[in-house]
């Protein structure tokens, strides 16, 4: 076990614990950035997909993981980001301006939605956002002149400084674009968490009454969280649209919303790592299933016909298993394994057991 001797405040403030941890993350980043050279185009595409999901997961993590507001409607904000990006590009705005603008627009839409949504708690907020997700489908169909309705829209490559960035023609540069966005969003997220605003999110999540007593304006904090969450989700939506190439009202369905929420629960609520780990599971599971199905078919001589609902059945089972056995998600599991090795042989079984909360002060509402 490494014991870090703290001698100044920056050691606590900076995001990495020590040089060792910092270099590990640098190596990881370098290895991922070099992916176009060591992965074939198919797996590079899959990795790009995982990263886009991770960005969307980071967006939802701000709201659900750190501010404690469940949302079952984030696919609606993916759609807003995606359509805003495409429509801006179609009107001749260069991609490098259209893309952040799409995020900003989604953030504004999110803040507007947040004003009525703020009054709702827990399950009611989930239902409200679920309704939003269902509504978005109709809104896209109704706004046909702008959105193309059921026939949808198409987005080929975009140009960045004269270079073509396209999912199919130039998968490498497209991957780097997605990676750059993921890194920037992650860095912003880390900064947020070590500053007062991020801590006020956590305060609102864990105890609204005492957050208020500490001078945190609950409504304002929730609205900011909603707006930031939606802005990041909008960026992911824009990338998702570019990744899909073609999309219509059904691309960003309620199912995507539910998958997003499942993803961050499986990854581990309330951690940045959780968004990435969850995205890896959600992104690679369909491929893993189809590969293992083929493998099983070859082994047992069965046919490779598609089994309807298999993917969702397995997603659901994984989710139930996580909620029952590992509520802290994959990241929580990793923390336990790491602690086990660090403390070997002194790990105690109940080290991470959550103590029963004592009776809360009267809830006032």
């Amino acid at each position, binding site marked *: 076990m490494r014991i870090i001797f703290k001698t100044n405040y920056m050691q606590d403030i900076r995001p990495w614990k020590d040089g060792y941890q910092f270099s590990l993350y640098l190596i990881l980043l370098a290895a991922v950035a070099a992916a176009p050279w060591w992965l074939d185009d198919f797996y590079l595409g899959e990795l790009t997909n995982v990263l886009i999901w991770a960005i969307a997961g980071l967006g939802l993590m701000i709201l659900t993981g750190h501010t404690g507001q469940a949302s079952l409607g984030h696919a609606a904000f993916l759609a807003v980001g995606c359509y805003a990006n495409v429509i801006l590009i179609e009107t001749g705005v260069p991609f490098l301006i259209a893309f952040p603008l799409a995020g900003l627009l989604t953030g504004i839409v999110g803040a507007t939605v947040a004003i009525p949504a703020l009054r709702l708690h827990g399950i009611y907020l989930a239902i409200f956002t679920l309704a939003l997700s269902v509504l978005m489908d109709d809104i896209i169909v109704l706004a046909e002149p702008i959105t193309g309705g059921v026939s949808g829209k198409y987005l080929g490559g975009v140009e960045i400084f004269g270079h073509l960035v396209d999912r199919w023609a130039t998968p490498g540069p497209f991957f780097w674009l997605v990676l750059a966005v993921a890194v920037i969003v992650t860095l912003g997220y880390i900064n947020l968490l070590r500053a007062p605003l991020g801590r006020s999110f*956590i305060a609102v*999540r864990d105890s609204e009454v005492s957050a208020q*007593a500490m001078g945190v304006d609950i409504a304002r904090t929730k609205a900011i969280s909603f707006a930031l969450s939606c802005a990041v989700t909008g960026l992911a939506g824009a990338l998702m649209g570019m990744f899909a190439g073609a999309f219509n009202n059904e691309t960003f369905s309620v199912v995507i919303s539910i998958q997003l929420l499942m993803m961050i629960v499986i990854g581990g609520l309330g951690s940045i790592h959780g968004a990435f780990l969850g995205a890896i599971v959600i992104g690679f599971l369909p491929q893993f299933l189809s590969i293992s199905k083929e493998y099983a078919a070859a082994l047992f001589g069965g046919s490779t016909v598609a089994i309807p609902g298999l993917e969702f059945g397995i997603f659901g089972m994984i989710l139930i298993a996580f909620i029952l056995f590992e509520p802290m998600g994959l990241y929580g599991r990793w923390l336990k394994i790491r602690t086990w090795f660090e403390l070997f042989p002194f790990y105690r079984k109940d080290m991470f057991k959550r103590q029963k909360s004592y009776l809360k002060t009267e809830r006032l509402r």
Partner: protein
Amino acid sequence: MSLLEFENVTLKFGGLTAVDDLSFDVQQGEVFAIVGPNGAGKSTVFNLISRFYDPYAGAIRFDDHDLLRVKPSGVAAYGVARTFQNIELFEHATVLQNLLVGRHRHRKTNMISEILFMPSARRQEIESRERVEEIIDFLDLQAFRDKMISGLPYGVRKVVEVARALATDPKLLLLDEPASGLSVEETTDMRWWIEDIRRQMGITVLMVEHDMGLVSGVSDRVLAMADGAKLALGTSAEVQSHPAVIEAYLGKAS
């Protein structure tokens, strides 16, 4: 000079009068205790100061400000900090993070500078941490600095809550039953801390407490309440020997 002033405050929940025409004032620099049987309205007084409830009638003034004109989140900005009867910490955060939330009212940076973590945000973080470390030293919480609240024993949580309230640099500290559930030894520690908070930090303390040993040990004045109304106000000895107080606790001799 009176720091906090209650003037004929009445609060009703439907037909129940929780606080009945209550007037008292807390002087700058004193330790003021509120005692009374369960349901007397002691915690309700705290929740009125925290602006969780709107009084039915009357006025509450703090430091020459009309407290009834601010939002619940605005009370801290005037310099009022509190603890809760049943501990309301941020469970899934570390002790250090909890205390840093206490610094929230001193936040000067905006969202953008925090997301980019500009030098102003960095400076502010260092300032916050310097103050928080002083409080950690003051309340002997060094061993728990990086521990999650959810894994801490009850006695430590109680102290962390006081620390978080102190981190706001308040003028008035509201302690809601600081000694409830503490061992004799921990109660003694709490007693010396309350003394030190008043003496060294110059913070006025208003507390609700059942432990009469603690109350008579630290408080300058005591307010006894029953059924939302004032029974007696004076020094601890005066209040304890007041006939109305004895009657409220023990019943009338027949």
